[in-house]
């Protein structure tokens, strides 16, 4: 199987992606939006929108501190602005609303969100807890589900590799989010965390399907030998020793080959759904969709070209250590 033969190259590519993504995130930082930092967002639409300068002229004297303005357009041809400020009290909200709606006819505030900094921080810490919790549960479950095949690598290794693959699949969309923030000023909202968590679920599923096949093929291609061991205290106990009839790398390669059509087809259907969501789903979920597409592609790559080569690489390294 090509992905096992070229495992060094594939592992280096994945490693390179992880390092590059981490570098991007560390250099620029994920552009967390008001959901996490606290702040306010006011979206106002007009029949005919005023100029940006006019909006700035009314907002500047209000003492809102630094704020950002973005022009928007709805389906009905109305245009408007999204104003991002620090979090606003009820009185400030009324003042800002009045200032903005006075600028044009048929104007209305379509969306207003103000989030106190405490709520934002709490969401951020919840997100960290959720991601950690999900990862822990996965590693435990996978170790448990693979308990029957602890030769030639321990069952917890499957869980560990699943998590490393997860890291790969989550850090790449996170880096994409950072780049989107740097280049087009998109901010990460609570949907971003949900996208990451959905990628977690997808990626685990993908990796497990291949590992499941490895588990099955390992059981089919091993010979059992029961030997009696006499312990130091004179008690006899039976131990089962396994020998593989094929090299481990070959078994893993065979498993990837048997599941690759399924991996690709499921990715295709998922991406078809996501493309429909991107094109037709409207502006609010567009970033969410892009992050998911990146995650699904990364997840498919990692389940074929990262998790399994890593498994074989680890097994071979172990074998060298203990001849």
């Amino acid at each position, binding site marked *: 199987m090509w992905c096992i033969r070229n495992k060094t190259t594939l592992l280096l590519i994945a490693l390179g992606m992880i390092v590059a993504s981490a570098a991007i995130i560390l250099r620029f930082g994920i552009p967390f939006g008001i959901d996490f930092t606290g702040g306010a967002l006011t979206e106002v639409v007009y029949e005919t929108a005023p100029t940006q300068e006019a909006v700035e002229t009314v907002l500047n004297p209000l003492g809102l501190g630094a704020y950002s303005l973005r022009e928007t357009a709805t389906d009905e041809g109305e245009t408007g602005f999204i104003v991002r400020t620090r979090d606003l009290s*009820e009185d400030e909200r009324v003042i800002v609303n009045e200032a903005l709606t006075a600028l044009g006819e048929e104007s209305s505030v379509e969306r207003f969100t103000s989030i106190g900094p405490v709520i934002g921080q709490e969401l951020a810490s919840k997100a960290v807890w959720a991601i950690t919790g999900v990862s822990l549960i996965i590693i435990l479950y996978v170790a448990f589900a693979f308990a029957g095949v602890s030769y030639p690598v321990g069952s917890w290794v499957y869980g560990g590799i699943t998590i490393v693959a997860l890291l790969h699949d989550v850090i790449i969309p996170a880096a994409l989010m950072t780049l989107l923030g740097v280049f087009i000023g998109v901010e990460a909202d609570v949907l971003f965390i949900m996208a990451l968590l959905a990628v977690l679920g997808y990626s685990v599923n993908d990796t497990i399907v291949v590992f499941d*096949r490895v588990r099955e093929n390992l059981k089919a291609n091993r010979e059992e030998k029961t030997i009696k061991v006499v312990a130091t205290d004179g008690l006899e106990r039976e131990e089962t020793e396994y020998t593989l009839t094929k090299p481990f790398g070959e078994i893993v390669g065979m498993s990837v080959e048997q599941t690759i059509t399924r991996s690709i*087809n499921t990715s295709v259907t998922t991406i078809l759904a996501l493309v429909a969501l991107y094109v037709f789903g409207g502006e609010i979920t567009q970033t969410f969709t892009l992050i998911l597409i990146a995650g699904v592609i990364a997840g498919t790559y990692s389940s074929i070209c990262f998790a399994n080569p890593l498994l074989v690489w680890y097994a071979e390294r172990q074998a060298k250590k203990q001849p």
Partner: protein
Amino acid sequence: MPEDTGRTAKEDSFIRKFYALAAILALVAIGWFVWSNVTAENANRPFKLGLDLAGGAHLIYEADTSDVDPEEVPELMGVLRSVIERRVNVFGVSEPVVQVERSSFAAEEARDRLVVELPGVTDVSEAVAEIGRTPLLEFRLIDDTVLAAQDQLATMEASMNEANSASGSVSIQNATLDGEPVSEEEPYIDTGLTGRYLQSAALEFAAGQGGQLSNEPIVSIVFNNEGGDLFEQITSDNVGEQLAIFLDGELISAPTINQQISGGRAIISGGFTPDEARDLAQNLNFGALPVPIELVSTQTIGASLGAELLEHGVMAGVVGITFIMTFMILWYRALGVVAVVSLSGYVVIMLALFQLIPVTLTAAGLAGFVLSLGMAVDANVLVFERIKEEWRSGKNWNEATRTGFARAWSAIRDGNITSLLSAIILFWFGTSIVKGFALVFGLGVIVSMLSAVVVTRTLALTLPDVPAESTSKWRWLYGSGIKK
């Protein structure tokens, strides 16, 4: 594996076809149920749209519970919730939601919050003003001794003024009573009984017993247990005195205590008109917030923006599902048709669950659902690949299908269990928006697994049972991919 059921192959095939037909009919029935709930005007169970799709306001208040015994907090929050609920109901909004939320242990310190959702309200100024109103309800005793002293002083002043009308007015200052200066303010004593202890107040009409006028409007009040005890204590100690009721420091009524009152119920009568009595009952109900609250987050979405989001979400779902079905038929041919039926089953069951539970649909939930469409076929794809493998290895179609399902099961199970565990954790940790997504995700995992195991399996087994080395027609129909 041919099962030894004692049935002939023909009977067996008939039973399988019967099951398949029953499954399809059941799906059609569920589909009809969903459709009728969408189209009928007064449907029992329409889709429940979240605020971001229906338009409305979402407010988060934080309660300052720092002065309250932690054990009492849940109860006080419950009281706060019902007070705010009553205030919110003034707006006549359909289905307002008022929920108590406690920040999870992930936060540094626990904070108690109140989430208020007002569908259809986009100008929140009035709502915020109404909810934030913090009138204070107090019960105070009128201090008879001080009142008597004040009366006496006033009489003295009056008589002195009368006597000395020629030489101008006289006023008495710095009078003392038992060594304490006589206050010139109104003589009330705090009883410690406040709106915190009030459960409810209602307008009633007296039945004309016990010296009351028949049909006189009165206000009946009910205290909670603690308040009832306190009230009993106060009334037993002060029979014959007046108990003044203050709202925001303003005297609204001062009924006389006729006897000790136990059971936490009291009646306020005082020659009210029905309107006055109703206002009083309302004031008492709306009376005091048990703990101070502060608005920490506001979110409003205009109805037209919400409608646009909904339209986009539905459109994306329809297009997405069409893409997936087309792909499945093109790639898997006969099995693709099976997958299409199974996927339709997934969609109608999910939609029916959304209506029945009901799941509040949000933009995030819709996106999650569209995403789940792509993943729902996963179990089908897994099984199909396995069936083809078995079929090519020389088994007949039925046997290949049975083995395929059996062998693919462990992968389906492990993958779905981990997804389900993630969904549960998400639900546990999540804020309301994350919870909605987690619920859709978790349901999607279970339903897609069921639809693959039940619908796909039943239908795949009704396909003609031919061996792998059959005519090219069957080889094509049961094959897959771009090539023949």
